[in-house]
């Protein structure tokens, strides 16, 4: 089995679900850490993280709050929402806040893995574009690519 380089953080208060998902990802060669609530997630994201798979409805700090904080502190980290809650309005809000994808439970693991791989590829491309802009002296554009500036003005900061 090939080991995949993508570092994944799973955030969900449903322990049984997220522990099983972590186990299945590990069987496919992915390193997948878990966090069971928002504060734990924000602490965990300080370790090298490429993609977060994030639930929306959690006790205390909800997924939108985690998303907002992650985009502020670690703009290169891609966030995929995976939730049992949420209609079209929540989906639109998540995208406006910078989420890469919005998936609903129960999901097909191959669909999730495809989304993770594409999010990671997108992350690498963004980083390369930002470096290229910075090397050309366009630091504002480079910062915008990294920070997705327009989406940080959303959702009550």
């Amino acid at each position, binding site marked *: 089995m090939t080991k995949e380089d993508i570092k994944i953080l799973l955030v969900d208060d*449903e322990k*049984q679900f997220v522990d099983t998902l972590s186990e*299945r990802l590990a*069987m496919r060669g992915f390193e997948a850490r878990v966090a069971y609530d928002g504060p734990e997630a924000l602490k965990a994201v300080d370790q090298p993280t490429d993609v977060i798979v994030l639930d929306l409805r959690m006790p205390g700090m909800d997924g939108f709050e985690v998303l907002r904080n992650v985009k502020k502190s670690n703009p290169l980290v891609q966030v995929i929402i995976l939730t049992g*809650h949420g209609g079209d309005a929540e989906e639109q809000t998540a995208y406006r806040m910078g989420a890469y994808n919005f998936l*609903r*439970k129960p*999901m097909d693991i191959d669909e999730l893995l495809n989304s993770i791989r594409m999010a990671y590829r997108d992350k690498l491309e963004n980083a390369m574009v930002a470096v290229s802009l910075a090397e050309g002296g366009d630091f504002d554009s480079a910062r915008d690519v990294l920070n997705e500036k327009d989406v940080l003005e959303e959702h009550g900061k």
Partner: protein
Amino acid sequence: MNESQCMARLLASAVHDMRNVLAVIRESAGLAQDLASLAGGKAMPAQGAERLSTALGEVQRSVIQGAALSEAMDYMAQAGGMESGVGPCDLARVSRSFCLLAARQARAAQIHLSSGATEEPVWANVPPLAVLRSLLEVFDLCASVGGQVDLRLTAGRRQKEEGIIIEATEGANREMALAAMTGSPMLNGIRPGWRAVLMPWRDAGPRFFLSISACDTEGE
């Protein structure tokens, strides 16, 4: 908060829980499938492994069915939570949701429901619950003459009116169902804010058009 909004909130809450339950079942079944694949012929005979894989596949299919149903229920919750008179609603989505939500009682009435595909969305400026109520009345018409008919619901337009094309495609009681729908007074109903009219599609045949539109009348 009115009763409809109350139901919508409770339904949305229950749907969220149901999706989490289905997610746990799906992941656990998936893990069992992964372990069975890894074990191969070492831990159990090939026939046993194959049977296990089939059983777990059935679990996965049931989960997908449950997920589709919860999607339809979530749409009901969203529809119920809307203020009355607020639209527009996607008639194709309403048709799909109705087919899923009514599937169990349709089976009991020996009516097979299906939704037809549309190339583009058909939007109507009526509450989704109004459309669901009208579809249920059509369903009751067909059930009242013994069921045993296949009904296909497709969002569409007749001249400039939005509505749902109802086809009685086959079934032992198809003619009875068509006769029941022809000129039924039950559906020429006017309610506060909207009106439902059932009419033949273009000519005599197995198709009807359920036109649902907003209106200013006070209603029944």
